[in-house]
């Protein structure tokens, strides 16, 4: 029996090692596993060569949609990823290191994460950032838990414009905890101030909003921040990072904790993950923030260096009293985001945001001219917008798929009753040609179903 290709021991090695250990066979090392503990079955396929596995997976990949023109967003966008990023991030020194427990031989990861934190702070105009969380949804849940720790209250007001996927997740996580939820539907696409004010009281821990929200509406939550702070509640805002090249930042609005999905910062869509959850907050709350944090310090010779800091918040020290059960983060994704933001730079992020905004506005303009189709214009939008159709959105999207276009995300999946609505998202990758083709095909499809 030949050994699997990643095992280095030769037969000679094995013999010598067994001799040193003082047993005859490898089986003897497993004597603690008694016969009755053995596997009842281990019926797995025979091993294959690398080439065979590559071909097998390639075959499966071919069974997925290729060449589909994407206008589906929902918080996850088809942005261009500069070639530098995959090239740099695939370096073994980043890829195959582990959590920087030993700072002397992990300065690469640590400094990159410090730069990531700083870039996120710059982008959001917030004071401190952690070194990443799993994804946008878990980051929002963690922010809510953090707010509960900050003010010791247990009521949370959630704006209905917050991604329904995130809201579902938060609900499942808090099922066993004593938290009172109030969900407030949007008014004219944006956050409903009146309703939020009505439910805000001195038991309210946090108000959770999203910008742009799931319908695509851009908002200025400064007034909600004032309302909430007057009652001692925090405001948590989930943001789309690329929008911050143009849109008012959580820092400027006075938001207490901002989170978001960092997939757009140089990560592939990956059919749902790995993604990047980011979290930024005010300095005063840093000790209540979950996740690893990298800080600057000096070494014995006084040279600048970086370490994991404030570790006393974490599970390996605090155990059941930890700020969260999270131990790892998604370092590699955070480093990718740091690379992406460095490439884009101060001007690049503005130019990119502007380009996406212009394209989305052009798409709104063309789609809005189709008879029976209405683009929702009560609130301004950035890259994504809501459209009402004369026919059920699911059927329209299905018909568009057969024409090679993923036309949007029908809202009825998460908002029962909104059967004729869908959201449409645009990125810098969609050309004028693509948008015009989309509008033409949509018009055509609507005439036929």
């Amino acid at each position, binding site marked *: 029996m030949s050994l699997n290709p*990643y095992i280095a021991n030769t037969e000679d090695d094995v013999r010598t090692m067994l001799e040193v250990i003082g047993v005859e066979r490898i089986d003897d090392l497993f004597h603690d*596993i008694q016969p009755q503990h053995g596997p009842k079955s281990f019926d797995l396929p025979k091993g294959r060569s690398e080439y065979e596995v590559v071909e097998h997976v390639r075959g499966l990949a071919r069974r997925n949609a290729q060449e589909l023109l994407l206008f589906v967003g929902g918080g996850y966008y088809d942005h261009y990823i500069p070639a530098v990023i995959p090239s740099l991030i695939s370096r073994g020194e980043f890829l195959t290191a582990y959590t920087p427990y030993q700072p*002397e031989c992990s300065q690469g990861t640590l400094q990159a994460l410090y730069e990531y934190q700083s870039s996120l702070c*710059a982008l959001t105009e917030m*004071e401190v950032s952690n070194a990443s969380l799993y*994804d946008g949804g878990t980051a929002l849940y963690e922010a809510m838990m953090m707010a509960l720790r900050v003010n010791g209250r247990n009521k949370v007001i959630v704006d209905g414009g917050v991604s329904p996927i995130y809201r579902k997740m938060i609900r499942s996580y808090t099922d066993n905890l004593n938290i009172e939820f109030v969900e407030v539907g949007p008014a004219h696409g944006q956050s409903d101030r009146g309703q939020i004010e009505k439910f805000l009281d001195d038991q309210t821990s946090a108000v959770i909003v999203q910008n742009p929200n799931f319908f695509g509406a851009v908002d200025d939550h400064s007034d909600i921040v004032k309302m909430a702070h007057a009652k001692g509640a925090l405001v948590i805002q989930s943001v789309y990072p690329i929008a911050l090249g143009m849109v008012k930042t959580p820092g400027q609005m006075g938001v207490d904790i901002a989170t978001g999905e960092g997939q757009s910062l140089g990560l592939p869509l990956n059919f749902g993950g790995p993604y990047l959850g980011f979290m930024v907050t005010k300095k005063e709350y840093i000790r209540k923030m979950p996740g690893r944090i990298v800080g600057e*310090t000096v070494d014995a010779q006084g040279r600048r260096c970086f370490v994991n800091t404030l570790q006393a918040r974490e599970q390996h020290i605090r155990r059941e009293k930890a700020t969260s059960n999270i131990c790892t983060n998604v370092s590699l994704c955070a480093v990718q985001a740091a690379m992406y933001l460095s490439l884009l730079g101060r001007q690049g992020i503005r130019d990119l945001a502007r380009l996406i905004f212009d394209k989305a506005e052009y798409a709104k303009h063309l789609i809005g001219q189709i008879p029976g189709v209405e683009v929702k214009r009560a609130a301004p939008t950035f890259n994504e917008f809501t459209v009402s159709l004369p026919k059920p959105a699911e059927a329209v999207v299905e018909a568009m798929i057969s024409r090679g276009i993923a036309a949007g995300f029908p809202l009825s999946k998460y908002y029962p009753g909104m059967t004729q609505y869908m959201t449409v998202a645009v990125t810098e990758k969609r050309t004028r040609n693509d948008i015009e083709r989309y509008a033409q095909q949509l018009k055509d499809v609507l005439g036929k179903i």
Partner: protein
Amino acid sequence: MDLIFEKSIEGRRGYSLPESDVPSAKPLAAKYVRPQSPTLPEVGELDVVRHFMALSRRNFSVDGNFYPLGSCTMKYNPRFTEVLAAMSGLADLHPLLPQLASGDRLVQGALAILYEMEQLLCEITGFSAFTLQPLAGAHGELTGAMMIAAYHKAKKNRKKYIIAPDSAHGTNPASAAIAGFQTITIPSTEEGVMDLAALERALTDEVAGIMLTCPDTAGIFNRDIDKIAQMVHKVDGLMYYDGANLNAVLGRCRPGDLGFDVMHINLHKTFSTPHGGGGPGAGPVGVGPKLMPYLPVSRVVRRDDGTFRLNYDYPESIGYVASFYGNFAVIVRAYAYILLLGKEGLKQVSDHAVLNANYVMARLKGVFDLPFDRTCMHECVFSACAQSKNGVHAIDLAKYLIDQGIHPMTVYFPLIVREAMMIEPTETESKQTIDRFIQCMMDAADLAARDPEAFHAFPKTMPISRPDEVKAVKDLNVNFFD
């Protein structure tokens, strides 16, 4: 080394954008707009390449160094799985596609991978079903604890406590707390295994379950495992298997057969996906029949015609634990790894992981204190107690290794061993590499006896010496712009 921000030169660009081919739109109203540009660096593409190349050289990694970091399974990560994960048709797949009407037609290949992966993990572990959603080991643990809570809620059991051994990972009690439980800690015996008498006393009707690793964090396989399962099941408690150490027992035993009801697997450990400097990983959770109704949604199901779809219709499900279907690109890598190794290859993983660990243990026995002197599984635990009497602690030995180009073992874990040094060589390292490590450890012990003072200066060969961690907390600086 300078920060990227310190290399910024006004006006420099590192990114090319397509020229706008649409009319310039009317800008947003001023109240919605960010007035100032973010203070991101202004650097060229070559600046970025050189900067991150230079950073990468300041890291130890499995690709560059022996990395016997106990309990982390730092084995070689095959490169071909990187190519697969980045493949067109996988990497560029939007997660909302299967949620469109008939959208599952667009992602049949991806759903097939998820479905087959679930089947493979079931066969490897002896469980009935898996969810691939959890995004990391700790996330899997939390998912498991939430399912345990849902089970007891459905049965109207009044349960308050989760039991964990004192040798457990800190994540165990942290996860239990979020699922609404308090943790009872059970001490270990001198042999490093759970004290059964103490367990018996703790097992009241209010115990929801127990979280165990097997082999445990001391690297020992608990021979009483079925007895423990019987005791816990008697009070309708559930058995949680922390799969952090699965690398030791592939093909040797299956948690599902041992009486466990639920487990998580760290794909990034056992199934060799890269650790990425601390993530992303993946923590699929397997369950036996009792917990199947509570699995998170969505789940991938196979139609009679062999095609796949997502099913959300499980009324007792705990709901969404992640936004989508898990860390798909990590799952693809692990899937390919399992297919390449196959049945025999997987069994060899554990054979050689355990062989290598026992070899290290045999050779270093006598050089360092060995708190549990018996056959170990895939990792062995020594103590630097003898050296610490001379003022040389486990951490000092760790720093010595750095200068030898070896990433240190895990130190100060498990907590039940003073001056613990936990060594996990993994199956992918050669005897020659391990011999060199053993020699370095012997040299270190020798130096500790002769010249303990010398250790304070280690490491000497790295870009930095030991950092001032107290200053890092006291003069907190986590943002260049602050």
